[in-house]
């Protein structure tokens, strides 16, 4: 997909860009500095299904790209979300032990060297009281234990993952942001009742908040920002998820704006141009997915590479195409801000 070329003449730009004036303190007392992102930052998004599916609609990246403001150019994003992932990164393993998943994350992190890493984990813990939420052998049994045990395992795993990420990138890593999971929605029977799960999720949030403080990393409370503390058993009037857990496009838009607000940035009203930016991001993400998580890995890189490993040469050929898309994204971004600065 080609990104439609922007024609300056007929797109009236009105950015409701209220840069840093309507600043929402979504993060409670852990307010993030408005200078989190710098020009040229490389931002990795790491998490489970919530992050992985964000690649398909581009709202998170779009909001961050614009929220960072006109001077913060050249942001690059890599969506490293993986459905079903936990702080042990076990979902990322293929034929090996669960630890192989951690290695996969470390590999991309140490190769791409992000300057900013945003992380989102925790809803799987709230959803799995009394049953194991990870396959990692050193943690699996404890994760199925009492709530206190389960959350302790979660935080230990989280801490270890942060260390590994720090080690993997080295000095280039400037900022880490821990994002609490947003609330689960009660959409009514026959979908599950998440009242109890949300109470646990509030505890996950509290624990993460402390965790972030202790580790001196940023924290964004998406749970509160998305109304988690007010949610009661009854169905919301306008659902943000289609099953209580997974966000709809509309939900992601809301989530994205709450995230940038939580990071101390402002939001932008969507228009044709922001839509083009978002489409560009989606296309870039599609290409990056084929680059980073190609199908047929068994043949390309793993134990059948002696048969079809010659085809692995095609995979890096995605790189120049991705770069091309990123240039187009940057071009749209700068056009978007031209109006506001002019």
């Amino acid at each position, binding site marked *: 997909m080609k990104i439609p070329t922007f024609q300056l003449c007929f797109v009236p730009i009105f950015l409701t860009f209220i840069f840093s004036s309507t600043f929402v303190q979504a993060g409670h007392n852990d307010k993030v500095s408005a200078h989190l992102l710098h020009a040229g930052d490389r931002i990795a998004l790491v998490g489970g299904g919530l992050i992985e599916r964000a690649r398909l609609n581009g709202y998170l990246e779009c909001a961050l790209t614009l929220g960072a403001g006109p001077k913060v150019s050249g942001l690059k994003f890599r969506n490293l979300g993986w459905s079903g992932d936990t702080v042990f990164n076990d*979902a990322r393993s*293929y034929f090996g032990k669960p630890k192989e998943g951690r290695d996969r994350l470390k590999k991309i992190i140490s190769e791409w060297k992000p300057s900013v890493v945003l992380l989102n984990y925790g809803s799987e813990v709230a959803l799995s009281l009394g049953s194991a939420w990870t396959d990692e052998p050193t943690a699996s049994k404890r994760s199925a234990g009492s709530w206190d045990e389960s959350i302790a395992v979660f935080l230990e795993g989280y801490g270890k993952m942060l260390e590994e990420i720090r080690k993997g990138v080295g000095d280039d890593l400037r900022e880490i942001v821990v994002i609490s999971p947003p609330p689960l929605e009660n959409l009514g029977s026959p979908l599950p009742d998440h009242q109890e799960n949300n109470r646990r999720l509030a505890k996950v949030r509290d624990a993460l908040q402390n965790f972030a403080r202790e580790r001196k990393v940023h924290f964004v409370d998406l749970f509160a920002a998305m109304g988690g503390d007010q949610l009661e058993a009854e169905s919301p009037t306008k659902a943000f998820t289609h099953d209580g857990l997974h966000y709809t496009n509309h939900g992601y838009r809301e989530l994205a704006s709450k995230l940038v607000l939580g990071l101390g940035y402002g939001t932008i009203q969507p228009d044709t141009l922001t839509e083009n930016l978002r489409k560009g991001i989606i296309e870039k993400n599609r290409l990056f997915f084929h680059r980073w998580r190609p199908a047929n890995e068994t043949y390309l890189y793993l134990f059948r590479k*002696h048969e079809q490993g010659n085809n692995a040469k095609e995979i890096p050929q995605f790189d120049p195409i991705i770069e091309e898309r990123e240039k187009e994204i940057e071009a749209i971004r700068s056009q978007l801000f031209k109006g506001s600065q002019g």
Partner: protein
Amino acid sequence: MKITTFSLFLFFTLFTIAFGQRGLTKIPDTSIEAQLDSFILPEGAKINLFASEPVVRNPIHMNWDSRGRLWVVGSPLYPHIKPGQEESDQLVILEDTTGDGVADKHTVFADDLHIPTGVLPGDGGVYVANSNDVLFLKDTNGDGKADHREVILSGFGTEDTHHIVHTFRWGPEGMMWLNQSIYIHTHLDTPYGIRRLLGGGMWHYRPETRRSEVFMKGLVNPWGHVFDKWGQSFMTDGAGGQGINFVYPRSVFVASPGAPRRVQGLNPGQPKLCGLEVLSGSHIPEHWRGALASPDFRGHRIKTYRLSDKGSAFESREYKELLASKHGAFRPIDVKMGPDGAIYVADLYNPIIQHGEVDFRDPRRDHKHGRIWRISFPENPPAPFTKPAEMDSKALAEALLFSEENIVRELATAELRTRDPNVMLSALNSFVRPMSDLHLLRKVWATQALNRLDIGWARQLTKSKSHNARAAGLRAIYYDASNKKYKNILSIAEEAVSDPSPHVRLWAVSLLAQLDDPQTVAIALRALEGVEVDDFLDFAVWSICREHRDRWVNQMKTKGENPFDSLSQLLFASSAIGEPLGADQILASISKGKIKEDKKVWEVADWISNKGTPAHLQKLLGLSQQTDSVSQQHAYLNAMLTAKKIRKINPSGNLEAVMQFLHSENDTVWSTAVELAGLWKLESARLNLEVILKQAESKQVRKNAAINSLIAMGGEKTRKFFDEQIQDSQLSYPFKVTLIKGQLRIQPLLAARRAVNLMRSLPKGQDANTLFSAFLANKGATQALTKELQNNKLPEDIALKGMQLAESAPTRPQALIEALKKAGGLKPMKMSLTKEEMITMIDRVNSKGNAAKGESVYRRENLQCVACHAIGEVGGVIGPNLVSIGASAPVDYLIESLLEPSKKIKEGYHTNLIILKNGDSYAGGILSETDTEVVIRDLTGKHNRVAKRDITNQTISPVSLMPVGLTTQLREDEFVDLVRFMVELGKEGKFKTTTQRFARKWDVLPVNSPNPGTIHHYGSKMFTQEFDGYEWKPFYAMVGGGIPFEEVPVALNRRGDKYQVLRTQVDVVKKGNHKVRLKGNLADLNLFLGDKEVEIPAEGNQADLFIDFKKVGKQSLLVVVNGRGTKGHFALEVLSEDLRFNNTL
């Protein structure tokens, strides 16, 4: 010297390049007519084209909607998207608006998909498998195209694009069912927590609740799934080769990673299958109805199977072929009944299948064509069809309950889900007419499809007279068992667990596994009592004992007593979880004589060996002294041996008691005791062992055990004894080899020196293969031999053999290969062909190859093809089954695989390589795995138990188990014939296995077998006598079912009067006179059932015989060929439905 033959031939072929282009580029005629001409159909059937390219390209999966339209997904992108390529695969809706059996309208519903492998219309839109995700697409503005796209499920792996999530189907209970294949690792985020499935298996998903759960695990490529009329699930496998698989909750099948136990499919030895459908409806002839149709996509045909009840599961038998074709690109991969009652077949259309062995970008891969075929029976009227989408609630309810057309009920179920549940429930209740069990079941399903299960009706089913209905009632409750709204489910399960039908018990146990109650295991164990328990039921009970372990174990630990009704239940449960719970009680009851049967004792001993403590093992040692039963002595000794080898533990007390068995007359007991003495380092045994080894007349088995024992005992005394013996010129070569095999484990360098010395002066008629293999099997020994060869020469032929063995060793020791080349002065051998040579070769295969001659080359003993590969049901299981290799693999692939076996390795045939800390290596397939051990099947088919703690390295070897250079001994024409034979395998013609039921697996007596010497008295009947000297060897029929007389060894030659002896086993289902057909030169044939001669005509070449079988079960049929050089073939075929040959290993 044979090595030069093939090289010369290669040299020669270089001159004929120009003629060869055709072979490599030969693409089947892509015209519709070419395919139509190629079809072979059953009587009364007609085939026509329903749709084709450009509308449909490379179709993969299809399903009908409730408006009678066919939704098809196809993938020209397969196998892998190219950089710069759009995600452009399509979902197309096909419609036959005029009723002439041809699609006249098509709509592209979506054109931005990425290798879509499943499609299922319903819920107002359509579910589509899109690599990592399952999408729900919907047309919200009525323009016929999807404009709403939602990811429903994400987290499916894509490690291999023909394994990605597939085979969507609505269940009768209104859930969506979906499968994944072996290489896929899936982690779904669901509103109920993460759900994972690593490896193959099947999921179900209920859209209303968004709940996804794993139903069963395993199977390599489960590309087919159907429900029978009672709602039981059956699956096919595109690689496992077991035909139809009966699956039930929590069942685990072949290839499920890390599974300690698996159940088997119903038809071992079947080809790879893709797609599955129950043939049904009033349009097709009655005899087809109820048969399961599944495409053999490699063999260009559709096979069918018939099911019948057996124990807690089913029996599946091959039925007729529904369709066959000679067209090389016809790839049936999905089959579905249509609304008009005709059978629809999706034809991927591709001369190349798969992308593991054939390059992703092979130019012969088709990305353009695709066909949907329609098989109808013109003499029969089309089946009546009203679109469920257009039915009012009453008509819809009537269709759901009473329509006898499966397709109508299926589509009505999907339609039902879009209607108002209250309206539909009252419509379903409005019928007053009497209902059979089947109607009642459909009513239960309808309520469940609305997610409003009426448990009262389901309960009523569980009280039916029909066991099918009782089981189906339980299955319906199974899905809703966790719903707190339903009470007393435990009592339903408890009642059913003692049902007279094992089938119902299986479902009762499955239902129990869904419940929270602390008593579930105690109740489930009752299912094992009072009926014959087969593996399926046993597995289900075993599985719940493990899954609900904490419930009963905690109970037992707090109360300190057996929580079950009996000790044997405790034994079962404790063995299942692999813990020694209650071991003291059970061992005490053996000691008191309460447990006596050998089988039970073995069970207990095995369990203690795997899980017992040293104190338990001491009790076993004590028990071994108490009993006079040789089998039980063996059981106890063997258990202690296993505990030592796998778990490295000894009995806690005095070990000398084992010495008493050194007086045993039983070889097995003696050997086991001796091995234990060695491992336990009981020096008191040493002298005794040395004596055995020094006595020439000692039995080989005792000698082997003594060697192992002395090696294990180790020390200077052992080293000295071995080296003295090896250097003793009086000892035979084979015995020295045996000694060196021991020595290399303790003194590898010295052993290598002795071995090389022996190799340089091999006695006549001996080879060095065993020595090489022994050195190759241990890393330290391999290095020692390499070192020794640096300064030594070997005879060329010996070095060559060594090099061939080393080349095909999974460890592929390069340094040793080089050393052997040097030591033997070997020249580099050319084993690969240039492109031009390949073209020439293909041309020769096509123009000159003789498949019949090739088959006899294939069957030669020294080529060993048969030892490792099966063709259909018969042959070895080490390598891939070749049943349809010709129909699926291009010629160049076959040639390459023969010359360079490691270049392309079949899925599932990768060699696992395990290296132990002591340097020993094991290569083969992993059969099972627990916390403490791995069981690996090696090249010879032997199962080796390896202690996990001994393993230093475990990898998947990039080397094929197939020895390199097997074909170098062939002449050019023989090689060409062999390839031609393989090319023909599975193609329409003489080299496709038929559904005729021949005896294919035989045993024969070797040349000049010893015999009781009563031939003059009994004649041929002598061979029916029990005689210890007979060493039966396996022997397989040819693909066509026949046995060439000339290949059968002559067991006895009395002055030119030759006797060739073969026996096979027949399974008799029912007593009585049953018909068999015997072909061949009847004058020379004698046939015996047991020791009773069956009368056959004195001359002719074929006879249909009635044999009176007086009992059921397995019985031996013996054929003696008695003549002076009988020519031709013979074949034995059963014609009666009550006789079976079990041809698999």
